[in-house]
C-alpha cells in the first residue's frame, strides 16, 4: 500500500476525529466499569447489558416518541442510574452482607448471572429484531477540508460534557469527595460518619448510568438488540486494563487512546488484523505495565 497517505494531514485529522468519537464510547464505558470497581471492588460483567438497556431507552425516546436525542440521553442516564441502584441494593448488598473472603468470586458469579438474565429478559420482552435509528442528527459541515457529521460531533461533545461533569462532581462536591474517600479507605470513611452502603449504591448507579448514556449515544452504530452489549463490554475491559483498574482519569485517557488507535487500525490494516490490535495492546500492557499505563504505583482514584 501507499504509506505516503499517512503524511496527509487531512487523513490524519479525519482519523483522529473518528478515533475520538469512537473513544467517547470507550471512555464512558471504561469510566463506569472503573468507578464501580474502584468503589465496590466488583468487576461488573453485566456492564454491557446496561449499555444494552441504554440503547433501548434511546430507541424508545427517539424512534417511538420522536423526541430529540438529548432527551434520549437524559432518559437513558436516569433509567440506568435507578437500574444500577436497584441492582446494588437488591443483589450486591445482600451478597456483601453474607460474603467475606470469597467476595470477589461471588461477585463474578453474580454479575455474570445478571448478564445472562438481562440478555434473555430483553429477548423475551423485545425479541431479537434490531431496532435502530439510522441518524439522530442529519446533516454535516466541512471544516478545513474534513467532513464532520453533526451526529458524530454531538456524540463527541455529549460524551465530553458527561465526562467533564462527572469529573467536576467527583472532584469538588461533598458527595464526590465521600465517594473518593470510600474508594480509598472504606472503613475510615465509615468511622467519619459516611454511610458507605449509600455510597456503594450511588456509585453503582453512576457507573450504570454512564454505560446507559454510552448505549444511547451510539444507537446509530449499535442498534438495540439483546446482545448488543457484548462488544462494548469487551472494549471497556480493554480500557480499564490499559488505563489501570479503578483509575478514572486513566480510563478517560485510555478510552480516547484506544479509539484513535483503532481508527488508524481500521484504516490501515486488513479486516483480520483489526481485531488483533486491541488484544495485542492489552497483552503488551499486561506484560510491561500491569498496573496500567496511567497509574502511579500504589495510587487509587
Amino acid at each position: 500500500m501507499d504509506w505516503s497517505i499517512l503524511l496527509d494531514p487531512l487523513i490524519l485529522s479525519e482519523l483522529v476525529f473518528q478515533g475520538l468519537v469512537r473513544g467517547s464510547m470507550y471512555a464512558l464505558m471504561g469510566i463506569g466499569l472503573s468507578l464501580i470497581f474502584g468503589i465496590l471492588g466488583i468487576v461488573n460483567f453485566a456492564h454491557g447489558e446496561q449499555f444494552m438497556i441504554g440503547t433501548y431507552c434511546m430507541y424508545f425516546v427517539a424512534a417511538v416518541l420522536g423526541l430529540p436525542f438529548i432527551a434520549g440521553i437524559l432518559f437513558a442516564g436516569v433509567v440506568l442510574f435507578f437500574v444500577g441502584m436497584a441492582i446494588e441494593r437488591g443483589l450486591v448488598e445482600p451478597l456483601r452482607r453474607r460474603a467475606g473472603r470469597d467476595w470477589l468470586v461471588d461477585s463474578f458469579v453474580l454479575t455474570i448471572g445478571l448478564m445472562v438474565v438481562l440478555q434473555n429478559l430483553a429477548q423475551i420482552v423485545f425479541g431479537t429484531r434490531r431496532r435502530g435509528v439510522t441518524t439522530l442528527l442529519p446533516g454535516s459541515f466541512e471544516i478545513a477540508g474534513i467532513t464532520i457529521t453533526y451526529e458524530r460531533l454531538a456524540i463527541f461533545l455529549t460524551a465530553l460534557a458527561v465526562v467533564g461533569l462527572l469529573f467536576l462532581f467527583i472532584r469538588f462536591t461533598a458527595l464526590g469527595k465521600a465517594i473518593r474517600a470510600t474508594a480509598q479507605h472504606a472503613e475510615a470513611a465509615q468511622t467519619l460518619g459516611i454511610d458507605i452502603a449509600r455510597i456503594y449504591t450511588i456509585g453503582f448507579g453512576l457507573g450504570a448510568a454512564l454505560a446507559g448514556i454510552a448505549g444511547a449515544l451510539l444507537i446509530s452504530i449499535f442498534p438495540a438488540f439483546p446482545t448488543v452489549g457484548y462488544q462494548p463490554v469487551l472494549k471497556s475491559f480493554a480500557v480499564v486494563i490499559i488505563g489501570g483498574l479503578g483509575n478514572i482519569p486513566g480510563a478517560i485517557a485510555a478510552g480516547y487512546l484506544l479509539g484513535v488507535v483503532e481508527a488508524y487500525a481500521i484504516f490501515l490494516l486488513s479486516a483480520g488484523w483489526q481485531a488483533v490490535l486491541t488484544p495485542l495492546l492489552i497483552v503488551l500492557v499486561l506484560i510491561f505495565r500491569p498496573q496500567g499505563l496511567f497509574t502511579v504505583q500504589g495510587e487509587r482514584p
Partner: protein
Amino acid sequence: MALEIVDLEVGYSREVPILRGVNLCARDGLVTVVIGPNGAGKSTLLRAIYGYLRPSRGDILHEGRSIRGRTPHQMLDEGIALLLQGRSIFPAMTVEENLELGGWTIRRDRARLRQAFEEIYARFPVLKERRHDPAGALSGGQQRMLELARITMTRPRTLLLDEPSVGLMPKLVDEVYEEIAKLKEERFTILMVDQNVKKAIEIADYVYVLNLGENSHHGPVESFRDRLEDIVREWL
C-alpha cells in the same frame, strides 16, 4: 460515666466469642487504657463499641444511653470517634480534603466547619503548611497527626484509640503520645487499646487488663506501676 461496657459478649461467629462478658468503664475526661496479650480481644472490644460487630450479649452505654446496635457511621453523631489501627488516611486526597471529610457530619454547618479548621490548623501547623499536598505524601508521623486531627474535627467527647503507635518509628512514637496527652488536657474522654504497655501507662489514669476475652485486673494507674512487670510476665 462517659462510656460503660456491661457484660459484653461478642465474636466473629456465635460459637466462639472473642469477648466473654467484659465489663469496663471510661470516666469523663480521663485516659482509660486497655492492655493485654495478643488475642485478648482488645481491638475487638473497640470494634464492638463502634458498631462493627454485633454483641450477642451485654450492653454499651455512652453518657447513659445505650448505643448497642448502632452502625459505625452513626457514632460521630453520638459523640464518639475511632482512630483505626494502622494507616487510615485517604492517600490520594489532599490534607485539607481529608480534614473536610473529618467534618462530614457537620458539613452543612459552614461556620462550625470553618472554626474546626482554624482550631486544627492552630494545633497542627504542619498540616496547614501542607494542606494542598496529597495526604499520602506526608511522613508516617504526620499521617498519624492527620488521622488524630481528622477524628477531632467535630469535637466528639469520647475518643477510641486502637494501637495509636503501632508501626511507627520510636522517635515518632513519643510524638504521638505527646499529642494524646494534649487531647487529655483538653478533657477528651479517651479509651485506648495498646500493645505499648510502658508508654500507655505513662498517660493512663485507669488501666484494664484483658486476657482471653475476660477481665483480668483493673484499677487506677497508681496501683499498676509496681505490678506491671508481674502482669506482663504472666502473658509470656
